[in-house]
């Protein structure tokens, strides 16, 4: 359980996080979504005590992170991938961290195998690719077998294989009752991994909801119809609250109604349908809609100065 209460962080005059309040619950993967500079990384850094909040607080399982007697077994964090000395080997980096807590070298080998770095563990990290650095960061996060995982853009730089692997890994960890909190700018990725969603923009909370509700609530669901009689069907469908677009000949995109209604209308008028499908709004659409508002908001504020 991660609790953020009225968290505000200013860097000089710039407000990175603005009175943010939300909670991340155990047992599900929670996604943290927001455009660049929205304050995701700052929030995550505040949780593990790297940044001190200007006001408000961030707690993990009811405690401030620095009060834990064994921080690494409470929270595992991947903040920026290359939080490693370039001249040190992956193994020694993990070993140095493990030793602070008396975690045995056996566990270091375990996490190295788990993230698939076995063959390069003895090599200097400076020569690692982005994806390898990312895997090492994940190994660091998993080192203490922690109850809470905080991962900033974990799929960055991973190949499709790695993306699939981490998706399954995170879901598995959440199903064991852990708190899994990951940020991403890949909204489609979050849709496949996360169950719950925290969306921020301009350092402010925009949404705290389930992924399903977020997508459905975006009002972007629409019905796609392919018909040789598209023009006539459109005439019969037209009505208040219904918008019909025709992206290409013979294809209609109808919003404001349901597929069943469209099908019945076509049958009632004896029109042939080749395809009838509901396109749920994508997470991207919902996200763009939300953040577009926050971008506009900023511009009006700047314009007012």
């Amino acid at each position, binding site marked *: 359980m991660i609790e953020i209460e009225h968290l505000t962080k200013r860097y000089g005059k710039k407000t990175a996080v603005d009175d943010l309040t939300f909670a991340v619950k155990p047992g599900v993967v929670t996604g943290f979504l927001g455009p660049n500079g929205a304050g995701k990384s700052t929030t995550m850094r505040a949780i593990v005590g790297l940044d001190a909040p200007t006001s408000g607080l961030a707690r993990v399982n009811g405690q401030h992170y620095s009060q834990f007697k064994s921080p690494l*077994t409470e929270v595992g964090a991947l903040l920026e991938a290359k939080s490693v*000395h370039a*001249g040190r080997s992956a193994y020694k980096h993990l*070993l*140095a961290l493990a030793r*602070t*807590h008396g*975690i045995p070298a056996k566990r270091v080998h375990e996490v190295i195998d788990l993230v698939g770095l076995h063959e390069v563990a003895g090599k200097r990290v400076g020569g690692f690719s982005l994806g390898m650095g990312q895997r090492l960061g994940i190994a660091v996060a998993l080192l*203490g077998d922690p109850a809470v995982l905080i991962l900033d853009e974990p799929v960055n730089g991973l190949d499709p294989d790695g993306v699939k692997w981490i998706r399954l890994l995170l879901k598995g960890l959440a199903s064991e*009752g852990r708190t899994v909190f990951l940020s991403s700018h890949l909204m489609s990725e979050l849709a496949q991994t996360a169950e719950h969603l925290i969306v921020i923009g301009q350092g402010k909370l925009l949404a705290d909801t389930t992924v399903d509700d977020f997508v459905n609530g975006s009002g972007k669901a629409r019905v796609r119809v392919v018909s040789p009689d598209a023009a006539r069907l459109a005439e019969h469908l037209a009505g208040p609250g219904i918008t019909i677009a025709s992206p290409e000949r013979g294809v209609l995109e109808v919003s404001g109604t349901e597929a069943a209604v469209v099908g019945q209308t076509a049958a009632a008028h004896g029109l042939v349908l080749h395809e009838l499908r509901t396109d749920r709004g994508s997470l991207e659409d919902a996200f763009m809609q939300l953040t577009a508002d926050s971008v506009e908001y900023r511009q009006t504020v700047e314009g007012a100065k």
Partner: protein
Amino acid sequence: MTAAAMTERPAAYVPKGGYRLTGAGLLRSEWTKLWSLRSTWIVLLCAVVFAAGLGALISASVPSDQGLAGADMALSFAMAGVSMSSVFIAVLGILTVTGEYTTGSIRSTMSAAPKRLGVLAAKAVVYGAVVAVLFSAMVFVTFFLSQALLDDPALSVSLGDDGVLRALFGYVAMIVYLALLAIALGSILRNSAGSIAFYIGVIMILPQLATILPWDWVADVVPYAPGNVANTLILVDTSQSTLGVGESWLWMGIWLVVAYGLAGVLLKRRDV
């Protein structure tokens, strides 16, 4: 959220016990970090080779008929390379801290030890101990090497002579003091180039340059400068120095308290 969804949730995971963040753990961690970098081996090797090599080279080339005499003169030949060597030690000390900031590994370090001060203490203890052991060995090897190479019987010194052993350990103390000062400096400035420039410019060179200034009070103050307070310790005959041996220790202590006090406060206050 529905009640059904709530009950589907697994019970919150409880981390396995047994592991603790400890001071001993931090020391072992810093030990691992120190020796897992190639630069440590290279710089320490350079420091020892320069100190011993320069001392031997100069001792071997001292002419025997110049009327040079005395234990301090003999030691100054033997330890001719130590001040050069101290720069290597200070730079490596600075890098043990600033290297973490420039590479970002400080984020891993401080996430594992969020109270932070223990990390600084562990770095100081580990590096100080390594330098102490290394230079204790180096100082004695160089002393005997130099004595074997010096021709002039007037420069012949024995470990049993009054003050010689104390002066030799004085060299070790001075180097350890400078190493500790360098770590605090690195922690305060957090930037490799800036810290090294500050160390060489302000700690090493400025007090020497200041003595050229025409004001008397400058000459009175210079022996108390952080880079100079250890200078008494390396003398066999301390009767001519401004600071006595006890005062020298006291001032080393004062400067370390000041440096680590500032470093500690900043470490706690600043974002990583």
